[in-house]
């Protein structure tokens, strides 16, 4: 009798259905309601009726939650014009309808390069909508548990949310290891060096640096209970967004200083910053398998 249901193995729609359960999912853009991407069609590329993101609402014991799930299997979950407009629309809708929370299941490489500028502007609109929601006292959670990770502009979008919850196997960053290796060579970053990749983008180093509030198992129920707990916590403090900024500013300044000290030979002990050493990482990896 197994109850574990790995989030990473589900489609975007299945993730939303599972997170909403037992409540029903109210799909805000059922098939056929929105146009297909003319930009992909023009390049003779496959299109998808949902443009790689499902948006919906459902009831929870704290009230209505607006929720989006990016489909990593379609164009790597990347953000095009329609995809981004759906996210922005969902967030603006949650503000006008005074929903209790917004959960974004991010699984995306960032801007969809086939829609280039439109994708970048769309992510910018999502970022501003997230800040509007937070200023209105609505917690916005980034839930990162997919197989494609959360990179580029979507990584920045995650950082704009009230809090980030990560699956233990998820990755989060801006430029991925492959991109850095392509530009600066394998000496800078060997993208096949799995421990190095996880030590840079993995849930554990992000949690240790406090960029992420929780790490959860790759399990739908675990994601749901973590999301509910974080949401409830944030709802008790509607003005969190005002304090969160200055707090993070201090945190990042400390991090920059620690890294600079570590790079100065005079103070080698400064190297003990928030990241794991290679041996600590190996021990952690071994403990998970």
């Amino acid at each position, binding site marked *: 009798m197994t109850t574990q249901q790995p989030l990473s193995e589900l489609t975007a729609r299945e993730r939303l259905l599972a997170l909403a359960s037992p409540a029903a999912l109210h799909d805000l853009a059922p098939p056929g309601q929105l146009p297909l991407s003319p930009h992909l069609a023009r390049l003779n590329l496959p299109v998808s009726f949902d443009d790689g993101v499902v948006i919906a609402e459902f009831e929870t014991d704290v009230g209505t939650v607006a929720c989006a799930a990016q489909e990593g299997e379609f164009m790597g979950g990347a953000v095009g014009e329609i995809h981004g407009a759906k996210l922005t629309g969902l967030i603006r*809708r949650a503000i006008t309808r005074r929903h209790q929370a917004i959960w974004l299941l991010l699984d995306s490489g960032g801007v969809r390069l086939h829609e280039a500028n439109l994708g970048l502007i769309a992510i910018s609109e999502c970022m501003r909508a997230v800040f*509007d929601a937070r200023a209105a006292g609505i917690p916005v959670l980034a839930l990162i548990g997919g197989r494609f990770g959360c990179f580029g502009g979507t990584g920045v979008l995650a*950082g704009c949310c009230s809090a980030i919850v990560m699956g233990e196997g998820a990755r989060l960053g801006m430029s991925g290891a492959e991109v850095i290796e392509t530009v600066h060579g394998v000496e800078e970053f060997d993208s096949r060096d799995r421990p190095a990749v996880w030590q840079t983008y993995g849930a554990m180093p992000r949690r240790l640096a406090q960029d992420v509030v929780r790490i959860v198992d790759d399990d739908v129920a675990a994601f749901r209970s973590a999301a509910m707990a974080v949401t409830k916590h944030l709802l008790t403090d509607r003005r969190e967004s005002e304090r969160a900024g200055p707090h993070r500013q201090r945190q990042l300044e400390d991090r920059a200083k620690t890294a600079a000290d570590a790079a100065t030979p005079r103070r080698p002990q400064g190297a003990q910053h928030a990241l794991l050493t290679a041996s600590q990482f190996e021990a952690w990896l071994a403990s998970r398998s």
Partner: protein
Amino acid sequence: MTLDDLLPCFDSCAFQHRGDNYFAARAVLAGRAVTLLGSEHGAYVGFDVAVELARAVRQCQDAGVIVFLIDSRGQKLSRRDESLGLFAAMANLAESIDAAKRRGVTVLGVVYGQAVSGGFLATGLMAHKLFAMQGAQLSVMNRPAMARITKLPEIELEQLATTSPVFGDRPAQHWAMGALDEVLEDVAALRRRLLQELASDPALHDQRAEAGRERGGRQLAYSIIQKVVNAA
């Protein structure tokens, strides 16, 4: 266009920092104190610069003015910066601008060189109003890298860039998509426009999707946003 070409726009300018990666200055524009922030020579924005810029934004007094002067080829690509959490530093920079706007600071952006994704997303695209000087270049990624990733031939991308704003890097194309508020011909035009902005209260509401539809460069976004907002 260089930063020095742009400075005559202001009555005076004193740099607090002008280094390889970013600058910060106090300028005066028709009697108003203005904080100038940004980068020159197409500098890449890394973790430390993003944190420093955000600190400067947070230090700007209420009802102050910040003008971002942008010439950046994007975010720094390095393992160190990714380890430190570049995504968080960029998000923090964007958040610092949002918070400044909410406490009454006017935030304007001027692209005078290049504006490429990363740092642009966290600076110019967060401003109340964004302008570009004629000849500036705005893009998501340089064309060879884009060709590699999209598997579209560079020549095709180049052709697409001339016929459609989607791949275009000219300021007029970004204006058509609603991302920019005006393309400015010279420093005199920039001065006029900045003075005009300082004379009025900027709107916090994001109107870029509407603008993109009205100007014809971004046809779908606004109607889809509205459809979702109003869905039964």
